[in-house]
């Protein structure tokens, strides 16, 4: 379970940063969006590591985005979430988009960080469920 546990620990690390940034760094709350996305990314990597039916490149993807018929390296993380962890798909893609916009203009949206933390919760719960079906129990990071 080595890689899955490592990714899960990174997910917790980035989530803790996001929560601390929101609470303790006035004026830098926009980086919450970066922290929660990378936390979600690592959670997905933890689950993919345990998907023994996938080709190696998709168990350890190196790209955020690549289609089914990618010339090299299989699907990207976003597409694997779409195809394997569908209940988390919209929340994950929302976090990915927000991780870039957050540094520019998400402040104009109502309670952006509450929403982003909510998206993170959706991904977290779905990925923990996926890991449990693979016989892997990892603690909640929230």
């Amino acid at each position, binding site marked *: 379970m080595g890689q899955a546990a490592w990714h899960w620990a990174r997910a917790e690390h980035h989530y803790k940063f996001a929560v601390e940034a929101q609470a303790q760094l006035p004026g830098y709350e926009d980086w919450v969006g970066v922290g929660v996305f990378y936390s979600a990314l690592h959670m997905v990597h933890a689950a993919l590591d345990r998907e023994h039916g996938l080709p190696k490149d998709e168990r350890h993807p190196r790209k955020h985005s*690549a289609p089914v018929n*990618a*010339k090299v390296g299989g699907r990207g993380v976003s597409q694997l979430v*779409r*195809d394997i962890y569908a209940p988390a798909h919209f929340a994950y893609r929302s976090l990915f988009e927000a991780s870039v*916009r957050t540094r520019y203009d998400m402040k104009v*949206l109502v309670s952006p960080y509450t*929403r982003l933390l909510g998206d993170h919760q959706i991904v977290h719960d779905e990925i923990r469920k996926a890991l449990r079906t693979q016989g892997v129990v990892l603690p909640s990071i929230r």
Partner: protein
Amino acid sequence: MDQSDLFRFEIEDRLLDVGVKKHVSVRWEPGSGICRVGVMLHEYTWETRDEVLRRVLAFEAAHAEDVAVEVDIFPLEAATSAEYAHA
């Protein structure tokens, strides 16, 4: 007319009844299979942003074999107002 234009027309069509004024840009990268979509919204709220995101993801699903989408959804002010950038 190239593939970027064709994808743009399709995405614009999918966004037609999202009831806000918008501008769509598309860059298709055939080597990587990535379609980069930018959507500028004259009204940028969670509701409009999420609806656009849903429909762009539906576009991706319709072309999943050969297309992966990276999307950027942003308000008009981001492109037109220096004051906004400094807010």
